[in-house]
């Protein structure tokens, strides 16, 4: 085996690949060959590092130098300086890597310092397309241990003891779920991995599949052994082509090595795995819809009971686990339930991956122990809101969750605390909003999503969310009337109480929570026809203040010529003709134009 003195890790997650990671990787390989270092330096394509905001990212070990915003033209200099001459190219390093004159390694950067990687353990470290790298990181050891040293009941008991709860949203104890299917007798049982990640802004499942597909395969085989399923499906959305491709490669490699198929590890246990592509319907993340979709039917939810653990795919007992849940399994089997419980809180042990997005400096994926406070996530890891703006709220749980305001920012995050303050864990999306976000508009945005994604089966969700959306549309366009808030709440609680599936029952949450915490904003829209955050265009008017120096720049650039005034004298906007495009605000050199 060749020992390399240096490793260049190229992030090849979807974010970096869309910013030319493949070309950068190719140039690294070429250039390293040109300078004759190919026997000393290894270039590896890895999964996502998490800090997507600064991509394309490159990590060079052993120094742990974190190069951000890389491009093809920077590669030669990095190879010449860093790899050939041993001088780290400071100017290309991630901005927080340099503290005064000290160069920090990647582990010392704030973004990574507070993280604890369990589900993302191998992401950004191994080559996801090479099974040997996975095996080198103790891959398939957990499967070996389960099949040769444990019986199915012991596996289930271990997962129960670990307290692992489903990471897809519901937070149901995984071990308990497995035991339901295990005790059912059937000619065939199925194990399904739910990789139909649909929450806007959440991409942890994609990242695991792209960066560490074998961990999902291994965990599915362990789960299959525990519940008595010999057949598994990974239901993954077709919009994740890189994930699908790497998963296909991984399944083939596992089959070649006998880690999938007949008589795995000579234990007599058979497990076969297939991929099913979803067409991107949000509702297919709901387990009964997902099952319908695999069966070839329209993705529509059905009433439970019967629960899938009793009657699932083709009416056989079926367990459906989310990708991130499965990504914890191998670690629990290898390290034990006590180890897993050493992170997180009593009722929510372990870690959780969150996708930070919206008005936050460090957009990306973070994995933190449960019980970390929102403040730590948003300020210490996320770096706070950009441009010094004030934090207003954070939406957790995507369109099914709710917003959390400043007053609750010090609450430790876990399944139960989030629910108690009117939000939910969901799959771990965290969309940060600052003072410039209108909460009515945010509620409308999320409802827009659920209206589109409702399967159309039950009346409250299909017609009720549409009606709520219409009311919100009216409010944000200045047509709100007295009683709209009450009508919204009436509809919201009926939908919550009577919709068929989880999607419908949680769809009104963003409206309920924004009314709960920002009722004054709703009232300002309805009663004063004013959008306090200055977002809802129909409610805004642009004015020029006395600060105007009469430079005429705004008047010259206005696309509808609604600004008039003489040179060096205060200008005026004809608010009736104004289309509120905002170009005057951008153009004004003295910030004399305001919207209110």
């Amino acid at each position, binding site marked *: 085996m060749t020992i390399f003195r240096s490793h260049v890790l190229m992030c090849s997650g979807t974010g970096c690949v869309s910013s030319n990671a493949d070309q950068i990787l190719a140039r690294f390989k070429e250039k390293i060959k040109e300078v004759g270092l190919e026997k000393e330096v290894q270039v590896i394509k890895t999964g996502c590092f998490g800090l997507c905001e600064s991509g394309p990212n490159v990590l060079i070990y052993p120094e742990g130098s974190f190069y951000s915003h890389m491009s093809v033209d920077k590669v030669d200099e990095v190879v010449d300086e860093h790899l050939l001459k041993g001088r780290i190219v400071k100017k290309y390093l991630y901005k927080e890597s340099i503290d005064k004159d000290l160069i920090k390694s990647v582990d010392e950067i704030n973004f990574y310092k507070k993280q604890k990687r369990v589900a993302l353990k191998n992401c950004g470290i191994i080559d996801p397309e090479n099974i040997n790298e996975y095996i080198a990181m103790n891959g398939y050891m957990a499967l070996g241990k389960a099949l040769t040293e444990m019986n199915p009941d012991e596996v289930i008991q271990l997962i129960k003891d670990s307290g692992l709860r489903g990471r897809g949203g519901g937070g149901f104890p995984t071990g308990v779920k497995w035991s339901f299917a295990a005790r059912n007798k059937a000619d065939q049982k199925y194990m399904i991995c739910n990789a139909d990640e649909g929450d806007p802004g959440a991409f942890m499942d994609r990242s695991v599949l792209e960066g560490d597909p074998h961990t999902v395969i291994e965990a599915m085989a362990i789960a299959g052994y525990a519940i008595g399923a010999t057949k598994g499906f990974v239901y993954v959305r077709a919009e994740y082509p890189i994930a699908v491709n790497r998963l296909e490669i991984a399944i083939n490699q596992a089959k070649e090595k006998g880690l999938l198929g007949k008589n795995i590890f000579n234990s007599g246990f058979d497990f076969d795995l297939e991929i099913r592509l979803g067409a991107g319907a949000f509702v297919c993340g709901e387990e009964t819809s997902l099952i319908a979709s695999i069966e070839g039917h329209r993705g529509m939810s059905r009433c439970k009971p019967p629960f899938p653990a009793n009657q699932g795919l083709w009416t056989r007992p079926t367990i459906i686990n989310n990708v991130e849940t499965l990504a914890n399994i191998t670690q629990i089997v290898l390290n034990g339930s006590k180890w897993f419980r050493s992170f997180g809180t009593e009722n929510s042990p372990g870690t959780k991956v969150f996708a930070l997005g919206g008005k936050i400096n460090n957009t990306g994926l973070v994995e933190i122990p449960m019980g970390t406070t929102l403040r730590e996530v948003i300020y210490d890891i996320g770096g706070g809101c950009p441009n010094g703006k004030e934090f207003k709220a954070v939406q957790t749980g995507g369109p099914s969750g709710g917003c959390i305001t400043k007053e609750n920012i010090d609450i430790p995050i876990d399944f139960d605390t989030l629910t108690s303050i009117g939000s939910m864990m969901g799959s771990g999306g965290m969309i940060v909003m600052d003072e410039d976000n209108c909460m009515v508009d945010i509620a409308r945005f999320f409802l827009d999503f659920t209206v589109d994604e409702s399967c159309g089966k*039950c009346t409250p969700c299909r017609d*009720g969310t549409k009606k709520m959306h219409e009311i919100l549309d009216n409010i944000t366009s200045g047509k709100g009337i007295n009683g709209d808030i009450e009508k919204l709440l009436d509809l919201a609680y009926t939908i919550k*109480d009577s919709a068929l599936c989880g999607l419908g029952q949680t769809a009104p949450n963003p409206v309920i929570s924004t009314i709960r915490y920002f009722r004054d904003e709703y009232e300002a829209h309805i009663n004063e026809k004013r959008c306090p955050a200055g977002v809802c265009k129909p409610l805004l008017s642009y004015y020029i203040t006395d600060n105007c120096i009469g430079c005429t720049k705004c008047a010259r650039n206005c696309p509808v010529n609604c600004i008039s005034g003489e040179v060096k004298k205060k200008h005026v906007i004809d608010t009736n003709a104004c289309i509120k495009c905002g170009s005057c605000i951008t153009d004004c050199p003295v910030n004399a134009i305001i919207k209110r």
Partner: protein
Amino acid sequence: MEKIIIIINGKEAQVDKNFTILQAAKSLGIEVPTICNDNRLVPHGACRMCVVEVKNARALLTACTTPVAEGMEINTHSERVINSRKTTLELMIANHPLDCLTCSKAGNCKLQDYCFEYDVTGEKFSGFDKDDLPIDDSNDFYTFDPNKCILCGKCVKVCDELQCTSAIGFSGRGFSTHVSHPFEAGMDYSTCVSCGNCVSVCPVGALMPKEKTKFREWEVKKTQTTCSYCGVGCQIELKVKNNKVVGVDPAMGPSNDGLLCVKGKFGYKFINHPDRLKIPLIKKDGVFNEATWDEAYDLIASKINEIKKEHGSDSIAGLSSARATNEDNYLMQKMMRAVIGTNNIDHCARL
């Protein structure tokens, strides 16, 4: 059958262990409203009218899909339940034309009945942003008006689960969901066999038979009878107005269980057709002339006797009809064998 105890609307009751809440309530004489439920179909749980309050359940549960359990405490008409049903109806009616004055379904419409029962006027959410969709009248026997459809799913499920034709399904998502057929090319271009079972189960005026005579549901007298088209013995209800059959509904007979085929459902127009033969005709010199029944029978008997005498019994054959009853068919073969003396008897349904 094993019984369990449930507490329903504050009263203890014994019900079958395998019942759903809806079945249990019905067995106890408690009416729970439902639009999408049909005992013959797998419960759909879509309309949300049958929601009930079950103690310790997070949300309301649909009575049609939830099995009863020992000690379950159910409230079928609590304030929370009534409010939910009212809002559901308000949503349905807000997205449904209020043309009950001219709609032929009036009087036989579940939406109308429940809106009446729950005092729902359609004003609460009026002004719904809805599309005006074209009516599909491509099928010869029925029309489909998607504007009136409340998406209860009964038509789709009857076609799929009972008729097993699967000609229709759902298309679109969310508010755009609609009942549809392959490639949206018109119902006539689907695999539809025009059995009309979808029309029979439609709770509103979305699927309506093409009828020549206008009638109101309360104007017709219903008479149950056996369909005369074949020997299955489907039970039908003839709707009669002014002594004229104006429509047919399937009845719950043992052999048809509320289903019909295209002939039974739509093929009743011959009854009052002017071309229908009501008296026997005898051909003389190449022209049909009206005759009495006695003249006709006498002619048949004399001809048969003549042929039998001249050419023997086996020169005569009888062909019986599947449209006749079993008893008539039995008598026919008896007559051929015992009276005429031949085994030459056959039947159009003998395959």
